[in-house]
C-alpha cells in the first residue's frame, strides 16, 4: 500500500516543531506500524536527510517505550494496542496518516516523536513500593493472598507506564497511571501497612507535575492494557481517608 505521512519534526526541546510530509510506497499490510517507520527512515537516510526519531524497545507491547499519537489517538486506532503492536492492515491504501509525539506539559519533547516521561518515575519514587528490605522476607506462603485479590492487583500492575493516559487527557493528568500503581500494591495484604502514607505521597507528587483529573475518561479509552478508571475512584477515596488518617497521626505527634 502507498501512504502519505505527516510527521512532527522538532530538532530539540527548545526548537519550534512543524509537520513534514513524506510519501511512502509498497508497504506490506502485515508489517507493523513501527516497521513502516523504519522503512521511512531508511528512505530518508538514503535521500540524505535525518531519520525521524522515535522510541521502541521490546516491540511486544510490554516495555512501554513506544508511543506516538496516530491520527489524533495515542497509540493509534486499534483498541488495547500499543503502537509497536499496531499493524498496517488497520490502514488503507492511499491514507494520509498523521504522527505526533505525546502532547502533555509534563512530557517535554526531546526530539521529533521522543518525549521525556521521567515525571512518572518521580511519582513512583514518592512511595510506589513496599518497604521490604532484601533478605528480610518471611516464607512466601506465610502471606496467603486471596486469588481474587491477586487477580485484581495484577489487573492494575499490568500498566506498562507508557504515558498514553496522560497524552489522551485534555488536562494532561496522570490519574490513571498513579491509580494503577497504587492499586497494584494497595489491593495486596503486603501493601496495607504503607497504604495511606503511600497514597498521600504519590498523589501529592503527581500534582507537582501533572494536571488535574476532571473525569473525561479518555485515559481508559487509549490504555493499551485496558486499565479501568475504577482504580481512580479507589485512589480518590483512599486519598481523602489518607488525609484524615495522616493528619490524625500528625496531631498525635509531640510538638515543640
Amino acid at each position, binding site marked *: 500500500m502507498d501512504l502519505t505521512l505527516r510527521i512532527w519534526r522538532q530538532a530539540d526541546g527548545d526548537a519550534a516543531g512543524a509537520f513534514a510530509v513524506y510519501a511512502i510506497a509498497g508497504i506490506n499490510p502485515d508489517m507493523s506500524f513501527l516497521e513502516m517507520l523504519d522503512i521511512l527512515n531508511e528512505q530518508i537516510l538514503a535521500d540524505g*536527510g535525518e531519520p525521524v526519531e522515535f522510541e521502541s524497545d521490546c*516491540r511486544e507491547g510490554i516495555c512501554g517505550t513506544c508511543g506516538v499519537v496516530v491520527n489524533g489517538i495515542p497509540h493509534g486506532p486499534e483498541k488495547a494496542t500499543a503502537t509497536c503492536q499496531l499493524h498496517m492492515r488497520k490502514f488503507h491504501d492511499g491514507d494520509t496518516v498523521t504522527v505526533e509525539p505525546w502532547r502533555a506539559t509534563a512530557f517535554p519533547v526531546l*526530539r521529533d516523536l521522543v518525549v521525556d516521561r521521567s515525571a512518572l518515575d518521580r511519582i513512583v519514587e514518592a512511595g510506589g513500593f513496599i518497604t521490604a528490605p532484601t533478605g528480610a*522476607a518471611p516464607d512466601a506462603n506465610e502471606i496467603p493472598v486471596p486469588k481474587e485479590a491477586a*487477580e485484581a492487583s*495484577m489487573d492494575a500492575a499490568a500498566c506498562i507506564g507508557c504515558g498514553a493516559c496522560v497524552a489522551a487527557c485534555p488536562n494532561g493528568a496522570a490519574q490513571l497511571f498513579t491509580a494503577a500503581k497504587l492499586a497494584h500494591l494497595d489491593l495486596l495484604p503486603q501493601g496495607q501497612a504503607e497504604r495511606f502514607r503511600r497514597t498521600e505521597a504519590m498523589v501529592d507528587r503527581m500534582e507537582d507535575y501533572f494536571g488535574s483529573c476532571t473525569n473525561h475518561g479518555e485515559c481508559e479509552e487509549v490504555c493499551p492494557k485496558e486499565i479501568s478508571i475504577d482504580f481512580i475512584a479507589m485512589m480518590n477515596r483512599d486519598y481523602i481517608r489518607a488525609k484524615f488518617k495522616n493528619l490524625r497521626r500528625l496531631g498525635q505527634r509531640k510538638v515543640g
Partner: protein
Amino acid sequence: MPVSSDVTLDPKVPPGPIEDKWATHKFDMKLVAPHNKRRFTVIVVGTGLAGAAAAASLGELGYNVEVFTYNDSPRRAHSIAAQGGINAAKNYKNDGDSVYRLFYDTVKGGDFRAREANVYRLAEVSVDIIDQCVAQGVPFAREYGGLLDNRSFGGAQVSRTFYARGQTGQQLLLGAYQALARQVAAGMCRLHTRRELLDIVLKDGRAVGIVCRDLVSGAITRHSGHAVVLATGGYSNAFYLSTNAMYCNVTAAWRAHRHGALFANPCFTQIHPTCIPASDEFQSKLTLMSESLRNDGRIWVPKDPEDTRPPDEIPETDRDYYLERRYPAFGNLVPRDVASRAAKREVDTGHGVGSLGNGVYLDFGDAISRLGADTIGERYGNLFEMYERITDENPYVVPMRIYPAPHYTMGGLWVDYNLMTTVPGLYAAGEANFSDHGANRLGASALMQGLADGYFILPYTIGDYLAGQLGESTVPTDDPVFAEVETDVSDRVARFVGNGGTQSPDHYHRALGKVLWDSCGMERGREGLEKALAEIPAIRDEFRKNVRVPGTAESLNSSLEKAGRIDDFFGLAELMCRDALLREESCGGHFRVEHQTDEGEALRDDENFAHAAAWEWQGEGTEPVRHTEPLDFEHVQLTQRSYK
C-alpha cells in the same frame, strides 16, 4: 592452542561440601562495617532484574550507588518482556522437588558445561527470591486458598515455576524497580537514565569507573567508583533478528573484554523453539510465544512436502507429529535446543508451512476438544491474542505457525564464584555473565539467575572486595586514565558522524546477522564457520568505510547509537564463530554438524571439552587467546542427555 601466561583463571570456589560452600563463604568473606559503607561508591550499569536488584540491595546496605541505563526509565529494561515464569525449589507442590533436584536439573539441562558450585548456590537462593518478591508485592498467580500456584515449565518433571499471568518478567522487574525507586528516594541510589556506557576505565589493573554518552545532549560523561557492576544483558541481537528488545547490545561486555575481561563460551547461544516466523525482509524483531504453549499444543508438519492443503484439511494420517514420533518420552516437551533443531530439520527438508514455508504448526485442536476452548483461553488467552494481533490468524481455529529464533545467550563475561570478572573490581551479573546455564538454559531460569545475582550474591561478594579498599577514595575523574578513555570514546563517536557513507547502520547489522545465523545459528559446521570468519571482518571494514550516520553527535541521534553498538557486535560475532570452531563437540545449544550420533543427536566430547573456554583479547586483527577452566562433575554424573 597458545596460552598466555599472565592470566590465571581461578574460579575461587570455596572448599567444603557443596551444600555448605556458600554458607561457609559468606562467613569467611570480609564485611564492611555499617558506618563505613557510605564511604564506598559502586557503579551499577543496567537496571534489568540483575542490575535493579543489585542496585537496590547495595543501596539498602548503605553504599552509594550510581545506576546507569540507556532506557528512559529503569522499568523498561529487556527483562520486562519475560513471559513464562521463574523457577524456585520451594517444593510447594510436594512433588519431589528440592534444592538438589533443581541443581541437578540445571547442570544436566546445561549439558554439563556449567560450574557445579555456582549452580548449587543458584538453586539454594532460589527459594529466597520468591519470598523477597512476594514481600515486595509481586502479584504471582494464586490458588483459591490464597497460596502460590506453580506450573511445570520447559519440560521440567516437577512444578516449580512461579508466574504472574504471561507477564512474569514485567512483575519481577517492577518489584526490583520499586525497590530501586525506594533507594533513589532515600538518596542512596542515583539514577542516570538515557545514559549509555561506552567504555570502562581501569587504573593499575582495577576497574575504577566508566565513560558514558548522554543520549539526549550527546555529552560524554565520566563516573568514578570503587567497583563496577555490569548487568547489561545478553547479546542475541548479534543475529539482528532475535526475541530481544531492539536496544539490547553487547557494548558494555565487549568494552570490558577489550580491557582484559575474559569472554567465556561466546558460542553458547539459545535458540528458542516457539517464536512467530518472520513475515518479510523488513521484519525488525521476532516475537516469542511462551514455551508454556507446548504443554497443550502439538507440533506437526505435513508428511508430504508438496502438501499445500490448509491445515484443517490435512487428515491425521498425513501429519507428522515429529517430536512425539522421535522422542516418545518427552514428546512436545523436549528441551529447547532439541525442539529447535528438530523444527529446523523439518523446514530444511521442505516440510515447512506458511506462505514462506518457514514454520511448523503448533496445534491446539486436540487440547480444545479435550478441555474446551474456555480452559485453553484461560491458560493462553493473552498469548493467543498477541499471536492474532501479529499474524491476523486465530489460533483457536487455525494452528499457530512457529519457528525457532535467537533468544538468550549463555556465554558472557567469565566470572569467578564471586561474580568478579578477570578485571579486579569489575563484576558481571545476570545474562551478561557466562552464568550458570552451561551450554543450554532451562526455561524460567534466567529470571532466577538475574535476581539471585542481584539480590543475594553480589551484595555479599562486593563487600569482600571493598573491605580491602577501606580508606581509599575513588579515582578523581580528572585523572589521566579518565581523559584517555574519554578521548578514545569521543574519537569513535566523531568518526561515525563524520563518515559520509551511503548505507544505514541497520543495513550492515542485517548483513552481519545473516552471516551469523547461517554459520553460527542452530547448526554449525567447520566450513561455514571458517567462511564466516573471513566474511565478518570484511563486512565490518565495509561498514566502517561506508556507514552513514546523519545528524550530529551533540543531539539525540539513534543512528549514532546503533552504529556504535553494531561496531562492537562485529568483534563479538567473530569471537562467537571462533569459539564455535574450536569447540569440536556438540553440546546444548552448540550443535556442530561434524559431531552427532547416527540418529542426529548432539555428541559431547567430555574428554576434551569438559571446560569453559574463556577468550583473552589481543587487539583487533590479532587472534585472541583461548584459556580454559576445567569443569569437574562431582555430584552430577556425566551422562548423555536422552529425551527419548
